[in-house]
């Protein structure tokens, strides 16, 4: 087993996050007031984007259908639909328990009061690419903008078109239930500064188009690493342990190592084994995945085109293997 992945105790984690937050929030709060020019330049740039995109925002049915596919692959329904209580699509309400508290996916239907009805496309793009709300506050990284930032302009545009096409639902979003000090949104400015840099997915010309498509599906749309990559004490994913699994998954579950390590990962799985998992949820030992992965299969992977499925499998089998046995140590 790899000792490197041992997570610190929650109390220690809390302490470090608080210390970190205090250290970074003060100078950042000052920063926020001073560079007016920079901010207004940013606002102008956004306005520019808005003007550019504005007239072109009329959606063709084809683009809406593509947007629906992006919605599925990105698993939006998972957090933004309260399936347990038979809530309407994308109207929010689902609870996600994390080590920091319970989060509730908000309403993302086009309802003007409770959903995204008053948003401009530029607001949506900024949320997805930069993790910034229309009011300027930062999102908690439980909203995986850290992955969605990699989405292509076209996919974001189509997804926005699809969201606009959904029936509006007048249902208020539920407040997150997070402990102090994590609930302080301004701390997220420091978090972003430390842990996040935006940028669309870059094609690696040295790799095949299939690998690149698979990488895009896994990294940008599927946001697989948000659960399968262990996080550091500040709750940021650790790139060196990409997809290596963790004992601190959402809902208190263990999240398996999905690197191609033969002993602790998926190294012994055939492409057919992986295809079965993604289509039906069945694992090579005849078990069926449960909890959050069952949801991913239902909402996302079972709806993928064969080409995307193949690309994703090819990419996952080519990820650097990492030896990390999440079952080795009882928590």
């Amino acid at each position, binding site marked *: 087993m790899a000792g490197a992945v041992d997570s610190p105790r929650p109390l220690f984690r809390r302490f470090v996050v608080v210390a970190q937050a205090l250290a970074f929030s003060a100078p950042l709060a000052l920063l926020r007031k001073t560079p007016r020019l920079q901010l207004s330049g940013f606002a102008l740039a956004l306005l520019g984007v808005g003007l550019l995109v504005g007239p072109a925002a009329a959606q063709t049915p084809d683009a809406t259908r593509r947007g629906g596919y992006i919605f599925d692959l990105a698993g939006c329904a998972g957090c933004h639909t309260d399936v347990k209580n038979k809530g309407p699509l994308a109207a929010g309400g689902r609870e996600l328990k994390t080590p920091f508290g319970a989060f509730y996916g908000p309403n993302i239907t086009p309802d003007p009061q409770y959903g995204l009805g008053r948003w401009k496309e530029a607001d949506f793009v900024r949320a997805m690419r930069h993790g910034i709300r229309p009011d300027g506050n930062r999102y908690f990284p439980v909203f995986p903008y850290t992955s969605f930032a990699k989405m292509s302009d076209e996919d974001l545009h189509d997804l926005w078109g699809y969201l606009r096409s959904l029936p509006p639902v007048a249902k208020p979003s539920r407040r997150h239930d997070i402990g102090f000090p994590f609930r302080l949104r301004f701390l997220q400015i420091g978090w972003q500064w430390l842990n996040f840099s935006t940028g669309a997915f870059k094609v690696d010309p040295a790799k095949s188009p299939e690998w690149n498509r698979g990488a895009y599906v896994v990294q940008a749309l599927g946001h697989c690493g948000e659960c399968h990559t262990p996080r550091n004490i500040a709750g940021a994913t650790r790139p060196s342990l990409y997809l290596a699994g963790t004992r601190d998954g959402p809902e208190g579950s*263990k999240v398996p190592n999905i690197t191609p390590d033969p002993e602790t990962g998926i190294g012994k799985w055939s492409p057919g084994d992986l295809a079965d998992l993604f289509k039906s949820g069945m694992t090579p030992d005849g078990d069926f995945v*449960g909890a959050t992965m069952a949801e991913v299969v239902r909402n996302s992977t079972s709806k993928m085109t064969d080409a995307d499925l193949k690309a994703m499998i090819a990419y996952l089998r080519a990820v650097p293997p990492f030896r990390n046995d999440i079952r080795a140590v009882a928590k």
Partner: protein
Amino acid sequence: MTTVSRLALAMIGLVGVLGVATYSAEAQMNMMKQIEHRQEVMKGNGGAMKVLTPIVRGEAPWNQAAAVQAATTLANTAKEINALFPQGTGPEAGKTDALPAIWQNWADFQAKGQVFNEATTKLLQLAQANDEAGFKAQFPNVGKSCGGCHEGYRVKKQ
């Protein structure tokens, strides 16, 4: 009250306390045995699915005898699926991935068990009828019925 009757009363009380203690310890043991039994049965299901997978994928030739045997395992489990989850065999009794939500939503859990039952009964009938195409078409429905409970009622913690 005489001393003797007081003594007798105390004895009765003592026996009662001991009895309850033994009884609950025994109940606890039974619950744990139930959990272990359930896990064995579920492993058996996994084994059956593992036999069927290469056949359904076309990696192994159609084998009616194997199909009937594996489908029988699944159908038999499905018939007693609710009985495998008696009240008190959740995480409070021992190491299990079964969630308390099972007993909080018992009607829904039963309904999902019924879906599993119907799916596996049909699978077995198709195997017995030697209907290869029908069997292969029904197989994913069985999988779906497994996932149906694993999603809301099981979280892998071990």
